[in-house]
C-alpha cells in the first residue's frame, strides 16, 4: 500500500457523519509510514489506526468505522510521543509530508522510564576518564623526555690567542662543536668572543672578583681568575639569544652590537644601550702555554637579570 498522507486540520468523517479534525499524525519509526492519526472529537483526542481510513481527500479523511467506534479507540497521551523535531530519524520527513512539529513518533519505552539515566551519564564519564587519565603521565613524560638535558661540561678548543692582535678589542672565534643531538651525531659552527683585557677592563669584567661556575648539583667545576687577561664572552646575546657583533658606533666607539634589538655592550660586556637586562655572559676559559684557548660552552637563559644556567 502506498503511504497514506493525511493532512493536519483535515475534517474526519465517519460512516455516520463528521466527528472532528486531525491534530497530529503518528508515524512508525521503523517503516517510516503513518500508523495513526490523532483526531480531536468532542474535546478528546483519539488515536485512530491508519487501517481504519477509507480514503484521504484534499481537506478531509473518511473512516471505515462509525463515531461510536472512534470513541472506543485509546485516548491520545502526548507524553508517550515525541515530535519528529526532537529525534533524529533519517528520511522520515521526506516520507511523511506533515509539518515536523505535528508529526509524532512513539517515545521508546526504554527511554521513557530510563531510571538510571544519571547513572549511565556518570558511568560514561568515569570510563572516559579511566581511559584518559592513565595516559596523562606517560604522555607528559614522553613529550618532556629531552627537555631537561644535563649540562655539557666538556672543555672545547676554540682557537689560539695569536689571533688577537690588539688589547680591549672583541675577536670572534668560530669553532666546530660536535655533539649528539638525539640519534644524530652533529657538528655545528658556533662562535664566541674573546677579549684580551687591559687591567682596567678586567676590573670591570670581574667587579666581584673571581667567577666560579657550577654544575647541576651546585658543585664548582671551574673558577675564572680575575688575573687572567683573556675573557671569553658567549656568542649569544643575553637579551633574546641573537648573535652580536663587534662594530664601530658613531657615538660610543667600538662596541659589541646586537642587530636584533640593538643592545650595545662595551668591551667588558657592560650594557651601554638597548634592552639587554644584563652584561655579556662570561665563559669558563683556560689558556694553555702554547696559547690554545679552551672554554666550557656554558649557556644561560637569555632575558633574565640573573644568571640561570640551562646548558
Amino acid at each position, binding site marked *: 500500500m502506498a503511504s497514506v498522507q493525511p493532512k493536519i486540520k483535515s475534517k474526519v468523517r465517519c460512516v455516520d457523519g463528521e466527528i472532528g479534525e486531525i491534530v497530529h499524525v503518528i508515524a512508525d519509526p521503523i517503516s517510516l509510514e503513518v500508523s495513526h492519526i490523532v483526531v480531536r472529537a468532542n474535546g478528546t483526542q483519539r488515536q485512530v489506526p491508519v487501517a481504519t481510513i477509507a480514503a484521504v481527500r484534499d481537506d478531509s479523511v473518511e473512516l471505515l468505522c462509525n463515531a461510536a467506534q472512534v470513541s472506543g479507540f485509546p485516548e491520545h497521551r502526548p507524553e508517550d510521543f515525541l515530535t519528529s523535531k526532537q529525534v533524529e530519524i*533519517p*528520511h522520515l520527513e*521526506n516520507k511523511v509530508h506533515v509539518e515536523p512539529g505535528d508529526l509524532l513518533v512513539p517515545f521508546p519505552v526504554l527511554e521513557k522510564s530510563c531510571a538510571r539515566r544519571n547513572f549511565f551519564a556518570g558511568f560514561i564519564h568515569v570510563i572516559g576518564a579511566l581511559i584518559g587519565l592513565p595516559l596523562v603521565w606517560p604522555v607528559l613524560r614522553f*613529550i*618532556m623526555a*629531552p*627537555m*631537561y*638535558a644535563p649540562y655539557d661540561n666538556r672543555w672545547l678548543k676554540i682557537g689560539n690567542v695569536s689571533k688577537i692582535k690588539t688589547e680591549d678589542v672583541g675577536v670572534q672565534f*668560530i669553532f666546530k662543536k660536535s655533539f649528539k*643531538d*638525539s640519534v*644524530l651525531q*652533529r657538528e*655545528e*659552527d*658556533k*662562535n664566541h668572543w674573546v677579549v684580551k683585557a687591559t687591567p682596567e677592563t678586567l676590573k670591570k669584567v670581574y667587579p666581584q672578583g673571581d667567577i666560579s661556575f657550577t654544575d647541576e648539583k651546585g658543585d664548582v667545576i671551574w673558577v675564572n681568575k680575575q688575573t687572567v687577561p683573556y675573557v671569553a664572552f658567549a*656568542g*649569544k646575546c643575553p*637579551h*633574546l*639569544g*641573537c*648573535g652580536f657583533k663587534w662594530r664601530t658606533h658613531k657615538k660610543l666607539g667600538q662596541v659589541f652590537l646586537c*642587530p*636584533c*634589538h*640593538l643592545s650595545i655592550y662595551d668591551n667588558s660586556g657592560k650594557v651601554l644601550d*638597548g*634592552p*639587554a*637586562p644584563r652584561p655579556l655572559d662570561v665563559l669558563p676559559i683556560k689558556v694553555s702555554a702554547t696559547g690554545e684557548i679552551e672554554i666550557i660552552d656554558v*649557556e644561560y*637563559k*637569555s*632575558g*633574565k*637579570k640573573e644568571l640561570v644556567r*640551562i*646548558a
Partner: protein
Amino acid sequence: MMPLLQKVYDFVDERIDLKTLEAKMMKEPIKGGSRWAYVFGSVLLFIFIMQAVTGVLLMFYYIPSADHAYASTQFIIHEVDYGWFILSYHFWGSSAMVVMVFAHMSQVFLWGAYKSPREMIWLVGLALFGIVMAFGFTGYLLPWDQRAYWATTVGVEIMDKTPIVGDFMARFLKGGPTPGQMTLSRFFVIHVMVLPGALMGLAGLHLFLFRSAGPAGPFRGTPEELKAKTDFFFPRQVWKDIVAMAAVFLTISSLALIEPVVLLEEAKPDPGDYHPEPEWYFLFLFQLLRWKIFSGELGQFLGATAIPAAFMLLLAALPFIDRGPERNIFKRPIALLSWTVVMIGILVLTVSAIINREFLD
C-alpha cells in the same frame, strides 16, 4: 544534466538526502544581497586548501632532520621539476593568508558583525587567527636556513619570558634547553599535523556557527530594502567568491614567479653577516621589543607577552563590552578610531623595522 549523472545524483539523494544538503549549503539567503565585501572568508578557505595541497607536495621531498632539512629544501628548489614554484607558492601563500586574516577581521570589526548573536563566531575566529600565526611561526623554521634558525631562536626566547609557564613552554617547543634536531622535529609535527587538524576542526565549527547564527548583512537599510536585495549564496556570492579566489591565486602565483624563495646559508649558531629578523607579519612585534620601555625582564614580558595577550583578550571581550545594537561604523567613533590606531601602529612599527635595517651594516 546528463542521464548518467542524473542517475548518480538520484542514487546518492535517495540515500543521504542530497537535496536538503544542497539547499542548506547553497540556498542560504544573504540579507541585502551578495557583496564583494563578503569574499574574505571564502578566500581564506581557498588559501588554506592551496597551502594544504602545496604542503603535502613539499612533504614528498622534504626531510625533517637537522642534517637534511636544508639540503632537501635546496633539492626541492633546484632539482625537483617545478619544486621552486610549489615551495614559493607555499611561501607566498602564507603571507597571503595573514593579509586575508587581517582583511577578514577588519571587515567583521568594521561591519559590527561580531555583535550578538554572532559572538561565538568571533571567538572561534580569534582562535583561528592564533592558529594562522602559529602556522607562520612553525613553518619558517623548516627550511633550516639562517632566517629560519634565528627567527625561531628569538621567537622561542620571547615565549620563554612568560611568567611561570614560559620556561616549560620554551623547553617544550625546543625539545631541550637549546635549539636542535628536537626543535625541528617538534615544529615539523606541529606544522604538518597538529595545526592543520586544529584549523580544519575550528574552521568547520566557525562555518557551522556562521550558518547557525546567520550572516549579519549590511549595517544600513530598512528591512524592506534588505529583503528586496536578498539573494542566495549560490550563484551570485559564489561567483564573487570564485573571482576573488582567482585574483588571489594569480597574485600568489605571480609573486612566486617574480620573487621565488631563495634560502640563506644553512642554519648555525653563528649568524655571520645575517641580521636576524622574523617574517614581515611579526616585524611590528619585533620592532616593539627594540623600544627602551620594553627592556629589562619586566619590559620584555610586557612587550612580548603581556601586551599582545591583553590585546587578544580585549578582542575576545569585544562583543561582550560593545553591546550596543548600532552596527554602522560611522556611528561607532571609538571603534573606528581604535581600528585606525591599531592599523597605523602596526604599519608604523613595520615600516620602522624595515628602515632600521639600513642602519645595521
